[in-house]
């Protein structure tokens, strides 16, 4: 019986060998995958062992971790509440973080490669230092103004967004989306409470969790005329050139006539480009668009930033909040030739043209900045846990150059005229030169129109100080004028307190 006993011994060794090999597979090969798995609650507990760094703007802490008595040692709180919710996002106990909490997670949590020296020091001293701090470019005053004014708009719009940039650097001065939400319950350690809060927000009709400033694409209406005007200026038309206009224009292939917002606007057969922008002459721009053709229009829009799918706003060049792509849509017939009806409607920012509020602000910023469009960013500086060492200071850089200095100057003159003499009067600021363009965009056949304003402010020396885009969704009549007023208020606040660069 000894021979089979020995063989049984071999079988046992084989069985244990299988166990051993399998444990190696799980604990060595798959260990990292399991350790960081979404289903692994240990990730959350470990995450709360170290104090997460602050997110601050202008010396005010907007996201701070407070010590608790519970198993999770720190509670993430957002003193700014709903005001900064779409910039900061939130860091839930279970589930995925959003906003800059997600984008800058490594640095905030202290696990970033940049903080390796700190971690090594901790290993020696046995301390657990906090995560790093993230300083934002936001102007607290501009952000407050944008949030309060949007919420208190006098046309009763419940949805909308505002974004303000420093045209010279691309630093975001304000970024607001309404309706907003209070991120504090979402970061609660009581995960049932957090889940309930999330589900409530998720089901709200206004979709408050959505960042409209970066993620919502809407027909831009007349604000798109700046792009068309830029294309015209590069194709032999000057701001004083007379272009065909009229009270009504029916493109060759379509029975739908294009009319102006009011009969008083450019009823004459010819207006200068300057006046067409100032008055927001629909027929003039529709004809201009048909004359320029789809390729020229689309190319110009692309040069301003349309169609870009991978833009992010956060740390310069290091990810951040993703931005939806703005689109020009199709302006061609099925056979590939230009479709005059589509062209005409697209030229006044309708049809399939879609734009994010950020894209609108970037157009205004490029015009204000002599044709140079700076890459937008939110993170000004990364500060070590000890608050003395600076790890990463934003170094503003040009994203693209959509128009030449000369074309930019002409566009600037026309937009200034639109604010001083035309549709954007509400945006005027004493002592500053303000330029801009309103837009009223049809949303759906039976819904009120969206009100847009894109614009900029120049100081007395002609240097750009702020570029802004405000949109009030389904604001109805007076929406664009109210948007212009809000834009003026935001720029005024940004001038008073420029925020960090």
């Amino acid at each position: 019986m000894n021979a089979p006993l020995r063989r049984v011994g071999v079988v046992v060794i084989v069985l244990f060998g299988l166990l051993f090999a399998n444990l190696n597979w799980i604990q060595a090969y798959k260990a990292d995958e399991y350790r960081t798995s979404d289903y692994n609650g240990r990730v959350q507990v470990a995450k709360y062992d170290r104090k997460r760094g602050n997110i601050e703007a202008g010396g005010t802490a907007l996201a701070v971790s407070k010590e608790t008595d519970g198993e999770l040692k720190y509670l993430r709180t957002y003193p700014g509440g709903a005001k900064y919710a779409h910039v900061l996002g939130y860091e839930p106990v279970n589930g995925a973080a959003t906003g800059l909490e997600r984008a800058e997670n490594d640095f905030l949590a202290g696990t970033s490669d940049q903080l390796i020296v700190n971690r090594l020091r901790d290993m020696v001293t046995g301390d657990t230092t906090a995560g790093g701090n993230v300083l934002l470019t936001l102007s607290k005053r501009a952000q407050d103004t944008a949030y309060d004014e949007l919420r208190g708009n006098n046309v009763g719009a419940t949805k909308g967004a505002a974004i303000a940039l420093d045209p010279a650097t691309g630093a975001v001065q304000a970024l607001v989306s309404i309706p907003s939400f209070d991120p504090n319950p979402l970061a609660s350690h009581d995960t049932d409470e957090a889940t309930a809060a999330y589900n409530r927000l998720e089901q709200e009709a206004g979709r408050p969790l959505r960042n409209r400033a970066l993620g919502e694409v809407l027909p831009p209406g007349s604000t798109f005329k700046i792009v068309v005007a830029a294309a015209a200026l590069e194709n032999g038309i000057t701001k004083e050139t007379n272009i065909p206009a009229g009270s009504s224009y029916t493109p060759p292939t379509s029975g739908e006539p294009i009319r102006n917002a009011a009969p008083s606007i450019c009823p004459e057969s010819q207006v200068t480009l300057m006046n067409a922008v100032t008055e927001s002459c629909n027929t003039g721009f529709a004809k201009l668009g048909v004359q320029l053709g789809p390729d020229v229009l689309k190319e110009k829009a692309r040069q301003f930033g349309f169609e870009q799918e991978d833009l992010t706003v956060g740390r310069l060049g290091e990810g951040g909040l993703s931005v939806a792509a703005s689109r020009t849509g199709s302006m061609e017939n099925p056979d590939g030739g230009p479709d005059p009806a589509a062209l005409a409607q697209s030229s006044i920012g309708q049809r399939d043209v879609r734009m994010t509020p950020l894209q609108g602000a970037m157009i205004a910023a490029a015009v204000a900045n002599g044709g140079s469009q700076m890459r937008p960013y939110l993170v000004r500086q990364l500060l070590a846990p000890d608050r003395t060492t600076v790890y990463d200071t934003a170094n503003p850089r040009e994203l693209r150059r959509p128009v030449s200095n000369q074309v930019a100057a002409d566009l600037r003159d026309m937009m200034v005229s639109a604010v001083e003499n035309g549709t954007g009067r509400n945006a005027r600021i004493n002592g500053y030169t303000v330029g801009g363009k309103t837009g009223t965009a049809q949303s759906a056949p039976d819904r009120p129109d969206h009100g847009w304003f894109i614009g900029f402010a120049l100081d007395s020396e002609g240097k750009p100080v702020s570029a802004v885009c405000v949109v009030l969704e389904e604001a109805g009549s007076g929406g664009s004028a109210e948007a212009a007023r809000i834009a003026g208020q935001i720029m005024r606040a940004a001038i008073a307190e420029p925020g960090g660069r």
Partner: protein
Amino acid sequence: MTAAATPASSPATAGERPGVRMARSRRNAELSLLLLAMALVAAYGAMVEANVLDTVTPGFWVPAATLTAVFLGMHLVIRFLAPFADPALLPAVALLNGLGVGFLRRLDLANAAPEERADLAIFAGTGGRQLAWTLISVVLAGGLLALMRDHRSISRYAYTLGLAGIVLVMLPAVLPASISEINGAKLWVRIGSFSIQPGEFAKLALLVFFAYYLVRKREVLSLASHRFLGIDFPRGRDLGPVLVVWVISLLVLVFEKDLGTSLLYFGMFVATVYIATERVSWLLIGLVLFFGGAYLAYVLGEAVGGPFANFYLRAQIWLDPFAQPYDDGYQLVQGLLALGSGGLFGAGPGGGQPLMLPEVQNDFIFAGIGEEIGLFGLSALLVIYLLIVERGLRAALAVRDSFGKLLAGGLAFTLALQVFVIVGGISKLIPLTGQTTPFLSAGGSSLMANWLLIAVLLRVSDAGRRPVDGAGGKVTRPSGPPEQLHGAPTEVIKP
């Protein structure tokens, strides 16, 4: 009896039996190994407190010292009643048992409110209960050693034990689910707050019966009538008992909803038949029957559901636990995540998050421990199990009688198979089934049954290593079939 401790004057017959060659009792080696094991248990307790409480309480050594006292008692019993028993068995088992108690106490600490942790009573909670169960189990094991001076004496009760075994196996299946079902497996008999797993004891009783039956029938079963592919297959009518056990094990699978127990009984039986007959054909038949049956149950579970649905579900979870990570696959997923989080070195005793694991004090204790001691620690635990099993097999090799060989070999293999089933289950090597992890899991039934198993192995190893003609020593004469038949195949009748 004490005279047997005297070294044998002349090395007996030949070197073919390792026990005979070195007729030293090695009790002092056992004692030092035991103390080393207990030092490890004490160190483990201190590390747990350092990690969980941030301080080591003055009383950290009390559980380890209590265990040491209990195991020293067992050591003395062995010294006097089984002086030639294998010296590695007790320390190895004591280490596992001690670490189990330590880990359960670690769970108690985690379960307690932070402010109550520092002065948590040593004998409270799961850990304290396990300590008490250890005492009872060791007393039982010592008692068995005292009552059973010769392992062959239990063969007298073989039929009684066999009947008792079958009753114990079937009991939970027959009883209503309210009494016998816990977590989907009908393995229990619950009376009030007290519950036992009769299956744990059944495997011991059945194995005694198998060993006795097979020793008597091995000639018949060894008869081969068909030769196919170079393998001798038994005659059809000799398949009877195997088929009966196969059917019983499948019934267990279906009605107790437990693949592990089924695999355990069947594997146990096939292994003992193979050891008894030396016929590979029995292994093949066994494997084909078991896997065929399991596959059939899987197919039926998919097509018909009913009693087979549970097995089908378990197989589905095994194939892809992450498909339903929060309901059906939750246990297995959490087990894998715990093991993965432990990685190579583990989070350190007391440094993990074992409470995230469901059933961490029972089925998933190996994963819970694995998170804290890592791959290296778990490998060491596997080696300790392997050591116990190999020592059991060695006792089987050394003992002279067939009944002892079958008994020790079968028990050792059963222990190995149980470790394989549960550790393989929680690590997704095989479908997960509810088995206890020997000596680690919380619970009296498992601990008692496994300590009784160890007592039998100690007894058999004592018989095997005892010098044949020691001065005054009792000369053990083999009682089974004549010696010369052991190595040689029995007469083969070919048609």
